[in-house]
């Protein structure tokens, strides 16, 4: 009898202990700030200008963070999300190719049209909705948190479209605009010298300004109710004041007044599919670049409206509406900074920086909302602007780039101030390097007799081609049984070809300066379903080099090397060892030699949860001892 009583008491104490530990985990606050492209060299050269990051380094920990091979955002963030290598999560590049059609496609998500329609005349009625699927495999680490009762809020993490169905999340990079593109701006000008044309990431149209009024057509989503899928459109009327630098904008029922060189707020736009019956809601921001003497108006890509989203931009679907109800509308396009407009000369530097400011303002609103509602569990919050501005400013406009870094640092200060007891981690997916010279891999393969062109305008002769490049780091063999017209056989032929290409690329020197252009050539060795999309080789360029603009889409130019004359002056799609990211923690840690795959394991460990299936990283926190936390 006495023994039974002791057993009961011991069990009760044990259970109380377990309950306390689990409740502790449930109540814990962990915040991760993900800063795309935050570079360790830039940070280390500017500690005095980044007081909050400097303070965390002084009282907690700071180190460089190894990125993935290749060091591209979709790949790196997918490894952070799942704890898996690219060979397991299946995202190797921004751009993959379908070996059955040899067509490129966005690696992160796919929209599958509704399979069945009722057709009548020019119209078709879809009998189900199009299906949008994430192509990333593996389980998001916050789903594992959810399975253990830990709540998670994930804001704008890349490669999460449509968002994983767990906790609350807003989709990030990979989310398209309503035209189904990764961002297509519209630019209207009455300058007769500016010919109407499609440009990279947008369309330039002529505007007739008659008696001070321009009637402009904004292209919307393809009309899915028509058999020809012709684009829907909406009318934007701009009435320009004859004297003052103001214009009145009317679109649908919305009216806004904009001053020259200023931006409108978000304007909701309805695109009619069947007039007066069915329409699709989007939203745009308008920039009155010039009103006198020329008329120059920029209209942003048509973003999904978070108040009435036509795309699956949040989980649960009501989440974006709840946020917008409190903060107002915000950018929902996956990459909101319009680098295309700057590359095409529609934006000058000042215009681009003013647009970045809008993005940062939206991010601040979202961060404040997230902090207001964060009680316990995990909050992940993402900043895109350091990455996008580094592409355009790196090494030439450091002062302007520092302002973007400072804006993020200010937000980190806000997190420290408002959540002083939270465990905080700040990390980036990769760093940055200049992009001075481009390498046309397909031209090099052509020169080596491994790629052949057809004697017509259609491109590559697949019946003779043995290897080809597509994407920012990928090189593929034209493999029999995998590619549509593959000719290279598995076994010795494949092995010899890989060895030949590797040796050739590692010996490739830039004739302009004699420097090696490529530092690493990594064989992927992928098995299973991801082998279909995996490049055979991943090319690690030296700092200063990158795949040519043509190589990215599987095209070919007229020489192996060329100067990069584009306003996009920096990149990170090079040798991974040359572009590490950063890792800050408010917890004091011994020196760590961590990589992205270690972070989800570490975050799970903070909540006392073991790594998920396939996660091979190690916790940076080692044995968790809450007393060691410092601030």
């Amino acid at each position, binding site marked *: 009898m006495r023994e039974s009583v002791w057993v009961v008491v011991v069990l009760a104490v044990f259970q109380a202990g377990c309950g306390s530990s689990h409740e502790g985990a449930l109540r814990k606050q962990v915040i991760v700030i993900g800063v795309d492209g935050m570079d360790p060299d830039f940070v280390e050269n500017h500690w005095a200008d980044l007081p909050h990051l400097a303070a965390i380094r002084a009282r907690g920990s700071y180190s460089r963070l190894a990125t993935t091979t290749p060091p591209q955002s979709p790949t790196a963030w997918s490894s952070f999300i799942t704890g898996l290598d690219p060979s397991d999560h299946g995202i190797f590049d*921004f751009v993959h190719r379908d070996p059955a059609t040899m*067509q490129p496609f*966005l690696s992160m998500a796919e929209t599958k049209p509704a399979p069945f329609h009722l057709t009548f005349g020019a119209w078709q009625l879809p009998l189900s909705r199009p299906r949008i699927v994430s192509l990333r495999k593996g389980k998001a680490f916050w789903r594992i948190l959810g399975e253990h009762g830990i709540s998670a809020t994930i804001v704008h993490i890349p490669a999460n479209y449509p968002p994983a169905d767990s906790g609350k999340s807003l989709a990030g990079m990979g989310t398209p605009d309503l035209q189904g*593109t*990764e*961002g297509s701006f519209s630019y209207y000008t009455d300058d007769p010298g500016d010919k109407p044309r*499609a440009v990279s990431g*947008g369309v330039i149209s002529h505007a007739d300004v008659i008696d001070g009024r321009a009637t402009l057509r904004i292209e919307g989503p393809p009309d899915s109710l028509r058999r020809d899928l012709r684009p829907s459109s909406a009318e934007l009327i701009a009435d320009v004041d004859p004297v003052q630098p103001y214009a009145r904008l009317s679109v649908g029922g919305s009216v806004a007044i904009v001053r020259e060189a200023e931006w409108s707020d978000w304007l909701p736009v309805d695109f009619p599919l069947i007039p007066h019956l069915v329409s699709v809601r989007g939203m745009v921001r308008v920039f009155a670049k010039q009103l006198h003497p020329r008329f120059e108006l920029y209209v942003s890509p048509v973003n999904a409206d978070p108040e009435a989203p036509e795309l699956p931009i949040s989980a649960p679907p009501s989440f974006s509406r709840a946020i917008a109800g409190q903060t107002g509308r915000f950018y929902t396009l996956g990459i909101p900074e319009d680098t295309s407009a700057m590359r095409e000369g529609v934006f000058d530097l000042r215009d681009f920086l003013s647009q970045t400011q809008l993005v940062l303002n939206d991010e601040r609103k979202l961060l404040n909302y997230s902090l207001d509602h964060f009680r316990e569990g995990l909050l992940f919050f993402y900043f895109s602007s350091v990455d996008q501005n580094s592409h355009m400013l790196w090494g030439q406009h450091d002062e302007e780039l520092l302002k973007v870094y400072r804006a993020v640092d200010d937000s980190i200060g806000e997190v420290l101030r408002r959540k002083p007891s939270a465990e905080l981690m700040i990390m980036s997916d990769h760093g940055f390097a200049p992009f001075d010279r481009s390498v046309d891999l397909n031209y090099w393969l052509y020169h080596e007799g491994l790629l052949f062109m057809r004697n017509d305008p259609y491109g590559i002769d697949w019946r003779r081609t043995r290897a080809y490049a597509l994407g920012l780091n990928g090189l593929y063999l034209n493999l029999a049984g995998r590619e549509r017209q593959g000719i290279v056989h598995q076994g010795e032929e494949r092995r010899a070809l890989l060895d030949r290409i590797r040796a050739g690329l590692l010996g490739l020197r830039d004739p302009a300066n004699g420097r090696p252009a490529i530092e690493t050539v990594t064989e992927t060795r992928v098995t299973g379903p991801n082998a279909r999309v995996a490049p055979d080789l991943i090319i690690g360029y030296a700092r200063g080099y990158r795949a040519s603009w043509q190589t990215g889409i599987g095209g070919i130019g007229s020489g192996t090397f060329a100067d990069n004359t584009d306003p*996009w002056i920096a990149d990170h799609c090079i040798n991974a060892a040359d572009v590490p990211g950063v890792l800050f923690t408010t917890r004091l840690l011994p020196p760590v030699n961590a990589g992205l795959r270690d972070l989800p394991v570490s975050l799970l460990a903070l909540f006392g949860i073991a790594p998920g299936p396939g996660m091979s990283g190690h916790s940076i926190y080692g044995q968790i001892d809450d007393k060691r936390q410092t601030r």
Partner: protein
Amino acid sequence: MTSVKLDKSLCERAAKAARKAGYSSLEEFIAHAIEKQLAHLEEAESKEEILRRLKGLGYID
């Protein structure tokens, strides 16, 4: 069936090539050549649309 006018010398060259390649008739050869050309053109248009969707990423041109 629709009739199409072809230059005589082109027609003769096509007939010769069709016989050499083992086509059962000139019509079959021409239909196959048009099909092949159309497939290329349609693929090219499709690729253009695909690239339009991707270019907003900024990384490609």
